[in-house]
């Protein structure tokens, strides 16, 4: 079963949560990224995500493998929406389980940061005023200014 989902419809996060639940794990950490109503001072009415699915899933699996290696977590899931999203919609969901909380928090942070930089996913923002535009926030190293739309 793939640990990474690129979804054209809202994701049932309860199912993802149940997939992760296991008796050896006492820590479950989730990050949800939502569509925010403003970005860099402009009012956002909604946005469209598109993905190169096959590479996005492959790269997402590599990121989770790295998180398992680095932090010793037990398991993780990542789901990212594509298609048209409105303000308040969940764009990305990351869930991590581990025996203890510290590695779950750190791995969750690692996964979302890497997802934003590495997954071939693109975002076109629509504004209340003015022309829509493709948002370019990456191939930037982690320490550069974060143009991220949420989080």
């Amino acid at each position: 079963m793939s640990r990474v989902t690129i979804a054209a419809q809202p994701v049932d996060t309860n199912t993802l949560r149940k997939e992760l639940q296991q008796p050896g794990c006492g820590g479950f950490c989730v990050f949800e990224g939502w569509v925010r109503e403003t970005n860099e001072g402009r009012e956002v009415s909604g946005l469209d995500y598109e993905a190169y699915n096959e590479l996005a899933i492959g790269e997402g699996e590599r990121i989770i493998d790295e998180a398992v290696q680095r932090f010793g977590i037990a398991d993780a899931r990542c789901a990212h929406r594509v298609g048209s999203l409105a303000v308040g919609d969940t764009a990305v969901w990351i869930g991590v389980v581990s025996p203890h909380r510290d590695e779950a928090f750190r791995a969750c942070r690692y996964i979302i940061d890497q997802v934003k930089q590495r997954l071939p996913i693109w975002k076109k923002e629509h504004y209340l005023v003015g022309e829509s535009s493709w948002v370019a926030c990456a191939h930037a190293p982690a320490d550069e200014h974060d143009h991220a739309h949420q989080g």
Partner: protein
Amino acid sequence: MTSVTVEYYAQLREQAGQGRETITSDADSLAALYGELRQRHGFRLDIAQLKVAVNAQFRDWQQAFADGDLIVFIPPVAGG
């Protein structure tokens, strides 16, 4: 001549006016292929702003490509 399929996403898709095309080229590297397609479609993104994938694996720009490859140029990403 090598025959490959190229897929376009985001601004490249809009500028190409299509999501996918099959082309023949005698370019000797992925960089040279992008140069040809950039000229044909008027892509505004410079190669320094892109990555490239062949058959769903990231590749170096200086690598060659083979008949039947699926090539995707990756504009700056913005997931999350």
